[in-house]
């Protein structure tokens, strides 16, 4: 038992009784352990309760009093959200009053006369402990920012609902805020917190109208477990509109994933699916609401299978590396300058699997390192083999993934490949996506600067898909810009797209680096790019990615051109 006068700030007890003698006797019993305030009727008690509501640990309340009786006080306290956390012990001598008071929310009772001091002290102390314990639980149970449940408690309660009310059709809803870290970065954490708070409030008022519970699962992810709604677009719009009121300029976009109720499916599984649906909203989707469906389930199953099969695929040489040539188009005829190494997976049962299907998957769980390692080793070996066979160096570029950037052994791994294959550092170029630059900022820039000092050349991949400012660009260590494929696709039909391409070329000139255009499919596109001053082109117009033996015919062509050049 904590005897509170021994601590610096003793707990505060309010004693309410109309009779001075009763107040004093009780005060005498408690005064060695608690700070005490007194009130002599219900009205005065309410004034004191409001005045000390943050500090009061317990109220000892007489029931029969003039002006306002104890029952009225009890009722007012228990119906007031600001006050109902304060436990009330009633002072009474009658059994019937005890029962009525307990039914009204009293925590306990103390009988008159006050002749059992130890019993009184023990009851007061126990009720305070219980109430403080409950506050601790409540603090742990709720996220302090939004007052929604924390995820552990949320799932505990969701499971109870699922088990006790299997007849309720409860859906899982996951909500995320697009680019929340950017919102924080641009507007400050206080603004970001406010966004979370407002969304939390709106979710709570939504839940006040329907059955359900909600949690701020982590950072900007909210989970709602609610009775099936007729139209989730309405729900999403409601939340979105609330955030739109906050700021016209901040452009806060929500995305929502829903997994509808399914008999016997546990909440944790439902929410996994809802999260998958929510993540599908990422990207260019016009709609910000996704309902989990069979197609998503199939893709998830495929993803799971591919992740399981990865190690076996490496062991059984199911992966091969294809090469796509890059041509310098500012000379006539265009000349082979280099190649990009691209992974291919020939699955024994599923056939050829598109990199678009497995690369994002492995990027997500970090296993992309295994794939990268394989591609780098193959590419390094291939460069060396061609060097040996044709006495010509075709530099090959390989991709660096985000996880590689954080791998402390990256430099050693790359260095070994170069040294073991007797290559120059500039023979193997490293491609890093623009978004990796903008997301990882300083750490990436310092790593890349270091790799360049060693001698590697760096190509910025997918340029134009990220959000680099000109200012950032000028400080980024890069040797080549690779323009995002999207720009090229429509240059023949869209004046705007072609202007964008010319803009990228201008930027590259400003940075004094060459530009590679990807995805070039026909002669017309090639001519437009050439006229606009683009240096290097990669795409189906010249060649698809091909196995090494087929690629060799481009090497042979190049060698012939060189011989021709020497003769002239």
């Amino acid at each position: 038992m904590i005897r509170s006068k021994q601590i610096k700030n003793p707990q505060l007890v309010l004693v309410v009784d109309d009779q001075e003698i009763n107040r004093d006797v009780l005060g005498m019993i408690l005064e060695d352990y608690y700070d005490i305030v007194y009130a002599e009727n219900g009205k005065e008690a309410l004034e004191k309760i409001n005045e000390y509501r943050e500090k009061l640990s317990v109220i000892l309340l007489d029931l029969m009093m003039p002006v306002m009786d104890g029952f009225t006080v009890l009722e007012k306290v228990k119906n007031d959200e600001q006050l109902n956390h304060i436990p009330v012990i009633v002072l009474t001598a009658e059994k019937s009053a005890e029962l009525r008071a307990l039914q009204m929310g009293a925590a306990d009772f103390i009988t008159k006369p006050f002749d059992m001091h130890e019993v009184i002290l023990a009851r007061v102390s126990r009720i305070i402990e219980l109430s403080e314990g409950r506050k601790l639980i409540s603090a742990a149970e709720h996220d302090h920012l939004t007052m929604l449940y924390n995820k552990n408690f949320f799932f505990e309660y969701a499971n109870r609902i699922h088990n006790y009310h299997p007849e309720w059709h409860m859906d899982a809803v996951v909500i995320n805020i697009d680019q929340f870290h950017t919102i924080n970065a641009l507007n400050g954490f206080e603004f970001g917190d406010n966004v979370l708070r407002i969304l939390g409030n709106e979710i709570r008022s939504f839940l006040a109208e329907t059955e359900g519970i909600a949690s701020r699962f982590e950072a900007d992810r909210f989970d709602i477990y609610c009775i099936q709604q007729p139209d989730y677009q309405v729900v999403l719009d409601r939340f979105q509109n609330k955030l739109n009121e906050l700021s016209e300029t901040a452009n806060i976009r929500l995305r929502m994933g829903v997994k509808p109720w399914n008999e016997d499916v546990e909440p944790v599984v439902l929410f996994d699916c809802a999260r998958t649906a929510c993540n599908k909203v990422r990207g260019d989707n016009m709609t910000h609401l996704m309902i989990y469906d069979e197609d998503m389930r199939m893709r998830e199953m495929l993803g799971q299978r591919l992740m399981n099969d990865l190690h076996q695929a490496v062991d059984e040489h199911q992966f091969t590396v294809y090469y796509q040539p890059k041509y310098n188009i500012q000379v006539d005829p265009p000349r082979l300058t280099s190649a990009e190494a691209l992974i291919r997976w020939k699955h024994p049962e599923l056939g050829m699997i598109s990199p678009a299907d497995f690369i994002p998957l492995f990027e997500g769980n970090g296993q992309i390192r295994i794939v990268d390692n394989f591609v780098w080793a193959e590419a390094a070996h291939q460069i060396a083999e061609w060097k040996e066979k044709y006495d010509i160096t075709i530099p090959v570029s390989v991709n660096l993934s985000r996880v590689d950037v954080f791998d402390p052994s990256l430099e050693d791994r790359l260095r070994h490949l170069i040294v073991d294959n007797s290559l120059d550092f500039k023979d193997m170029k490293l491609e890093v996506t623009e978004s990796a630059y903008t997301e990882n900022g300083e750490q990436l820039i310092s790593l890349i600067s270091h790799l360049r000092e060693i001698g590697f050349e760096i190509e910025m991949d997918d340029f134009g898909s990220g959000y680099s400012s000109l200012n950032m660009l000028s400080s980024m260590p890069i040797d080549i810009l690779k323009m995002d494929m999207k720009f090229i696709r429509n240059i023949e039909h869209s004046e705007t797209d072609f202007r964008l391409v010319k803009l990228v070329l201008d930027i590259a000139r400003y940075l004094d680096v060459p530009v590679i255009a990807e995805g070039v499919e026909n002669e017309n596109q090639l001519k437009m790019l050439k006229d606009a001053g683009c240096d290097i082109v990669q795409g189906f117009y010249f060649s698809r990615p091909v196995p090494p033996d087929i690629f060799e015919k481009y090497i042979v062509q190049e060698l012939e051109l060189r011989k021709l050049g020497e003769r002239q």
Partner: protein
Amino acid sequence: MTLEELYANMGGNYEHAKQIMKMDKLIDKYVRKLKNSDIRTRLASAFETMDPAQLFESAHAMKGVCGNLGLDDLAALADEITEEFRPGNNRKMSDEEAKAKVQNALDMLQKTLDCIEAYEQSAA
């Protein structure tokens, strides 16, 4: 006059008072306060009208205070009146019996207050 003697004169339970208040100093303080409290006046004014609600409230107050002072007989008498007039309870006494009961309580209370007066005089 000692406190024990006072309690003997009042017909109170000194041991019980001691159990509640622990120290003679406090018993002394609170019996004196009883003399200045409105307990008897309230019961007396209820007696004038014999209004059940007033009787209940004043007897209830008397019961609590007397109980805490170890005036067990007075507390028991107050309890009888409280229950007789508690809202919702069935009356057990006739009006005359009840009136006699309250009169009795007032007399006993007066006697107690007189004893306290004498106690104060002896101490002064």
